[in-house]
């Protein structure tokens, strides 16, 4: 939870590789708190509580191909996992990033995307609708899934994006036959306490702040309201 006294707190994911000394937070100015965070200058203090909940099982993913599917600001938490994988590049098989945004101006970490490509990530970016300044793929992120070659037995897929994206991405992944326990999703929910008490992030019996936000598809497939 990241906060400022007077503005409250919001759940923000870490976008750097986990490290005991330092973390990167990449925050979109969207509400009162996040706009106030954008007004901070070097040397100002922001408040942090946590971390809470469960992240990606990086150890378990070792030896596998990773298929990252990010939509919009979903690339921010994905960056943490991508950087972790790149720091131990030899422990992983193929790394593929499918990244969809609405328009070219929303593409995040442009320099890093190029750098990741050099270090062995296959990067595919798409924008929702044609744009005069864009020469790359056009169409929602699911259009990148079809052409993607996947070895279903040795691939973990990771999906992070706006809620509306999950259902369609999961349906498109269906034809790739990746098992439900190898598909990981990070769920966004309203959160106030981070400790499984305030009730806002609850999906049926599950507290996303504590038991998530990262879930396997097999864990939440049958949970109404989850996807």
């Amino acid at each position: 939870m990241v906060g400022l006294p007077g503005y409250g707190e919001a759940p923000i994911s870490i976008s750097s590789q986990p490290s005991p000394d330092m973390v990167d937070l990449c925050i979109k100015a969207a509400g009162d708190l996040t706009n106030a965070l954008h007004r901070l200058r070097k040397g100002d203090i922001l408040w942090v509580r946590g971390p809470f909940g469960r992240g990606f099982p990086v150890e378990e993913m070792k030896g596998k191909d990773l298929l990252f599917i990010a939509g919009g600001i979903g690339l921010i938490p994905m960056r943490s996992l991508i950087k972790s994988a790149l720091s131990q590049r030899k422990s992983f098989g193929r790394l593929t990033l499918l990244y969809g945004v609405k328009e070219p101006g929303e593409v995040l970490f442009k320099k890093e995307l190029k750098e990741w490509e050099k270090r062995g990530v296959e990067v595919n970016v798409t924008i929702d609708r044609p744009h005069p300044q864009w020469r790359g793929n056009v169409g929602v992120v699911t259009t990148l899934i079809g052409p993607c070659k996947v070895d279903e037995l040795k691939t973990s897929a990771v999906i992070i994006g706006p809620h509306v994206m999950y259902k369609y991405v999961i349906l498109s992944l269906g034809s790739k036959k990746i098992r439900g326990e190898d598909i990981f999703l990070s769920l966004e929910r309203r959160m106030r306490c981070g400790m499984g008490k305030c009730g806002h992030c609850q999906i049926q019996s599950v507290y996303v702040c504590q038991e998530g936000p990262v879930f396997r598809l097999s864990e939440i497939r049958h949970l109404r309201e989850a996807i």
Partner: protein
Amino acid sequence: MMDFITKKGFRNLAQGLIKDYVFYGPVTKDGFPAFSRIEEFSQLKLSQTPSHISAKGFLFPPKETLLRFDIEKGMAEGVADAEKQVLFGLHSCDVHAINLMDRVFSYGKPDVNYLKRRENTIIVGTECVPDEYCFCASIGTMTVDEGFDIFLHGVKGGFIARAGSGRGRSLLKKYASPSKTKRAALKELERLTEKKKTLFKARLDIDDPSLLPLVYSFADGHPVWEKIGAVCYGCGSCNNVCPTCYCFDVRDEVSMDLKKGTRSRVWDGCTLEDFAKVTGGMNFRKTRADRLRHRFNRKFRYLADRFKGLFCVGCGRCSRTCLVKINISEVTNEILRASKERPLAVPAGKSKG
């Protein structure tokens, strides 16, 4: 332990507690039973029917400061205010509700504010009579064995006083001159308890309430959610009066000079429109039907495994207070009826979906 205290002993107990502690008990407000601060014995009006608003606010206040911060210095200190208090005149359902709240706030990372206040709270329960909304007998909360310091049952000439803790025993000794309960009084209490079972107008049509989580798990698609969702105002009154609704929001307030402030938690309600809404506008429970299904399931299903109990204690407060008369026992009975229907033979070529 079953002690007997006379009416005079009762008066001495109440008066002693009023004098020595911050004392909250039942009074009559606008003709209705309500819990309030009591400073004189004459204000105490034991109520046989439930208060409209539960007593949860004395352990989990509607608004509670968690932090005081100094913006200039970048400093914050935790606040956990908990004065020694007495909650007097709680009914069996209220005590059951507090036992559930104890489990919630001890689970995982313990909630210091609640637990400190709970430790400093003396609970004295009293006997009750069901009104048209009470259905505790159907849900196993008509009587209570733990969670109180003293529980009083009115019998001829006084009260049978059960001590539920060492603290309760010493308070009885200190104020109420308890004596051994005569066999006749015990018989009378037995008779009264049996009679109470016959007085319920509201009941759930289920013999084993521990099956309710299972029954609810088959009811996500039941038409009752759309039906009650269509009339619900989404006002959150049910959340407010419920003794086991504990969801909260966290808010900051800043002094006029923008130098200092407080962070508080305030009651929130899952039936309110923006409860599950996130920045950008996505609402994970957009319709009132979604939100009511969530609330009812929280009472009967979602929390049952984790906290080993139903989160409905049968007090009927949500039904009593609902502006459009959504009734929790009637809704549950509708679901129970559907669960008992024999599956119809599906005509060939058609699927029930």
